[in-house]
């Protein structure tokens, strides 16, 4: 069991962002984390990697309780992530961005060692030709790959991917899915927040569904896809849409 | 062609010969006086007056044809100066520039003890005589310099006379409060005053410093009220001193005696009106306390330079304002240099240093004599302070010199308030 999340809750002022989320993740799997916008998916990531301290519940990573640990400690233990809204270090080159990941991540490389890893990782995400460009000059898709490269350079045991497919076109999505699979092949466990349903259903071993901060389903893609609660939450209530259309036709 | 060449050589020869004779006859020499002035920053006012005084002297000397040495050399003067912005960052850089690039023959100090400390090292290092003015701290002259000479009465004797005055006015006054600005000069003065007061048997009921730039003296005044002293002494510079005096008055504290540094002798202090009445201030020089050749004769000293009245008239003519002691100090700095050059009959630093070491004379500014011991070389030991007091009412205020007894122009008002 690489990650155990039990009873995690997080509040912001009056808003209950997460309530009582629990799941266990086995090593080597890909878990999809889905739910409508605002469901608390990114908040859950933030509670796992230490950006937020949950009010209740525990997060155990590789047997160690990391609830409320500092983000950098969690990172050094082998937990890396990407951000939904990319956060490149704009004034550094792409190579330097990735070197940061390698230097300060789990393996704590020296600059020399990190440089080698950076070359390798950049080739893996196909950014090696732009290695000397400033990160700020990339487009969104490239920045997402850069985020991924930085996270990978840390050689994490567990990788949290926040909407890496968003904004990509069909062929880019295929490419990215390939990358995600390859990462898993190398032995890294993955949790991915995703909106592109086809892809996430396709690639995940487990799916966790959040809605308004509550965990409404956890299981295989098939189980989840057929769960009526999920259909209602995620796709909007089809009956409501019908109601609207009905009114329109009657108007 | 040959002819032309011949002619040319003749012309050249004549020119050279003429030039040589001219130089040999006139032997003009312009001595450069270098200093920094606080054109900007907090010392701007005092520094400007000081420079006005110096320039007045310089113009007078030059207009009167300079100083003629025994070898026929006529020495005239010019100044080079830079803005030190009232802070020490560049003082040494600028003084070095004056001493080397600008080939200053003599240096005058900047205004204030802090800046003077920094410039003294440069003067000493480049072997330039420096006359200080507006730099009263004793410590500057206790650092082993040999070329730095002070015109002002040092800080240690700045306010002690006020205590003597108090003692002469009222034997029953025993409690005093000292409230001073927290800068080098005012702290030095107050520390010396404190020691003197204890030695005289006074009880110092309050001894506190306030930050430079303080405008609200309420906490100090409240403490004074609590301590109920007979006299308050202290102060710092013009702005804080006049504010302090004004607020002491506004708060209606019953005090018998108030003596403050720097501010009271300034003519504009009288703008405080009733708040200025009775306030005593030490002055390096006062237009009232005119010193002239007759006074010198009485004291058995040589008199040099203009009389007090002549100085005042010239200064008023030049700047259309009454000279303050800063202006007089600037003037006398030049005057001392002039006298030293005459005595030394040379522009040589060593000769002039000796002339200054041996100097013992009276000027309109007062008695000038320098300490020549290694411990405090250059410290002013001849000059002493005068103490003025504002007297009168409302818009009709006048200064009177109330101490020392030999200079007194009016009886001291005592007690100034209450009773």
């Amino acid at each position, binding site marked *: 069991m690489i990650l155990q999340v039990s009873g995690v809750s997080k509040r912001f002022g009056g808003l209950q962002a997460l309530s009582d989320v629990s799941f266990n993740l086995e090593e080597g799997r890909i878990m999809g984390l889905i739910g409508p916008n605002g469901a608390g998916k990114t908040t859950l990531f933030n509670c796992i990697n230490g950006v937020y301290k949950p009010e209740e519940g525990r997060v155990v990573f590789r047997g160690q309780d990391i609830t409320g640990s500092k983000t950098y400690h969690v990172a050094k233990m082998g937990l890396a992530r990407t951000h939904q809204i990319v956060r490149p270090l704009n004034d550094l080159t792409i190579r330097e961005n990735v070197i940061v990941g390698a230097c300060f991540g789990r393996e704590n490389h020296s600059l020399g060692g990190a440089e080698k890893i950076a070359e390798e990782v950049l080739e893996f995400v196909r950014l090696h030709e732009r290695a000397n460009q400033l990160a700020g000059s990339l487009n969104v898709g490239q920045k997402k790959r850069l985020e991924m490269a930085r996270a990978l350079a840390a050689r994490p045991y567990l990788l949290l991917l926040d909407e890496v497919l968003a904004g990509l076109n069909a062929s880019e999505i295929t490419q990215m899915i390939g990358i995600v699979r390859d990462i898993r092949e190398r032995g890294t466990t993955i949790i991915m927040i995703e909106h592109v349903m086809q892809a996430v259903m396709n690639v995940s071993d487990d799916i966790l569904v959040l809605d308004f901060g509550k965990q409404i389903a956890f299981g295989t893609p098939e189980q989840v896809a057929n769960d009526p609660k999920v259909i209602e939450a995620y796709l909007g209530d089809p009956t409501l849409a019908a109601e609207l259309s009905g009114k329109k036709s009657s108007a | 062609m040959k002819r032309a060449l011949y002619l040319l050589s003749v012309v050249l020869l004549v020119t050279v010969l003429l030039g040589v004779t001219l130089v040999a006859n006139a032997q003009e020499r312009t001595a450069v006086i270098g200093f920094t002035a606080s054109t900007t920053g907090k010392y701007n006012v005092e520094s400007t007056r000081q420079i006005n005084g110096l320039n007045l002297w310089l113009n007078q000397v030059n207009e009167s044809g300079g100083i003629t040495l025994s070898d026929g050399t006529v020495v005239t003067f010019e100044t080079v100066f*830079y803005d030190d912005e009232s802070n020490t960052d560049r003082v040494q850089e600028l003084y070095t520039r004056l*001493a080397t690039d600008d080939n200053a023959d003599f240096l005058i100090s900047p205004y204030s003890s802090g800046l003077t400390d920094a410039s*003294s090292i440069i003067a000493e290092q480049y072997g330039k005589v420096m006359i200080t003015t507006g730099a009263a701290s004793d410590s500057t002259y206790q650092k082993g310099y040999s070329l730095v000479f002070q015109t002002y009465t040092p800080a240690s004797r700045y306010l002690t006379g006020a205590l003597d005055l108090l003692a002469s006015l009222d034997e029953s006054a025993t409690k005093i409060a000292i409230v001073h600005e927290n800068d080098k000069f005012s702290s030095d003065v107050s520390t010396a005053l404190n020691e003197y007061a204890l030695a005289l048997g006074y009880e110092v009921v309050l001894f506190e410093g306030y*930050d430079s730039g303080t405008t609200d003296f309420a906490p100090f005044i409240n403490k004074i009220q609590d301590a109920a002293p007979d006299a308050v002494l202290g102060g710092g510079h013009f702005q804080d001193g006049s504010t302090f005096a004004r607020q002491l008055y506004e708060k209606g504290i019953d005090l018998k005696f108030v003596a403050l540094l720097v501010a009271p002798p300034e003519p504009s202090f009288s703008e405080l009106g009733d708040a200025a009445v009775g306030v005593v201030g030490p002055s390096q020089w006062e237009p009232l306390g005119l010193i002239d050749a007759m006074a010198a004769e009485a004291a058995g000293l040589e008199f040099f330079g203009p009389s007090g009245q002549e100085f005042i008239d010239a200064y008023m003519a030049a700047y259309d304002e009454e000279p303050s002691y800063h202006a007089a100090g600037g003037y006398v700095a030049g005057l001392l240099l002039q006298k030293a050059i005459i005595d030394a009959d040379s522009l040589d630093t060593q000769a002039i240093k000796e002339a200054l070491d041996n100097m013992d004379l009276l000027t309109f500014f007062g008695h000038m004599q320098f300490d020549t011991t290694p411990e405090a070389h250059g410290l002013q030991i001849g000059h002493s302070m005068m103490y003025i007091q504002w007297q009168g009412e409302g818009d009709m205020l006048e200064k009177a010199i109330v101490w020392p007894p030999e200079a007194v122009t009016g009886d001291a008002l005592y007690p100034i308030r209450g009773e």
Partner: protein
Amino acid sequence: MSLKNLKNPGLWLTLVVVFILGVIPIINNKASAREETLTVLLSVILVSSLNILLGYTGYISFGHIVFYGMGGYVGLFLISVYGWSLWTAMVAGGLASGLLAFLLGSAILRLRGSYFALATIGINEAMRAFISNFEPFGGPTGISLNFQVYNQYGGAAQALWTIYYVVLALALGNILLSYVVKTSKFGLGLQAIREDEEAAEVMGVVTPSSKTWAYVLSAILPGMVGVLFFFKNGNIEPGPAFRLHLSIELLVMVMLGGYGTIAGPVLGAFGYQRLRGLLLTSDLFKNIQLTVAGVLLLVIILFIPSGAVGWIRHRFPVTRRYLP
């Protein structure tokens, strides 16, 4: 930090230029040039060290001068009271400032943006007020040195030259240090913090200790040159030692040259100090030099906000490799 990094031509260019400018007064044996260059070199040291915090880490300090004053006080205290030599006092001053930075940094570096800037102002003012009350350091009168103290360094004239050599060496050393820091793993972490502190934490940069050490590193050299400057000056008082205005001027210099670069702050220090020197001594401007300087500063901030070196790097990306 690998050796190949040291082959960067921009670094060497900067070092060589500073070295040549520093050596000119020595060759000409001209004291006024030495003093002018010394003012510039002091600024180079203060500015390059500030750049470690401001340029690399992205924290705006309005109180950098605290370390200069602190070093100066500790140094002069040790020299005047305990008779330490200038050199050991200089090291002690540097260490004292480093220690101060460590203590302060642990507390205030959690503040961001203008709140950090304000805290540094507060510390500067608190420090100045404290030293004014601190009797061992002479309270408001400060500490003065006896002229005799220069005798053990060959007299005042020689001492000033010796101090100059040391300052030149420190300036070169500081440029090298700031380069080494920038190209090290530690420096990379700092730059990551500057670009995005949270992202840096997520990648494992231990931000509190990195920032604190950056602060300490940026404080040591100001502490050392503080000792040298005030030793040369002969006295130290609370006002001049903790002058807020000087801190702001340092920011201006970093800004003029381009922050975060090696050459920028050096260029900024040269440009600013030379300009001020010229204005101060020019007949035309000496009465309005402050205004002229203000107008020039404003124009530069409004139109070349990334500073000279930053502008070149931005305009000609090729130069990025050569202008570290």
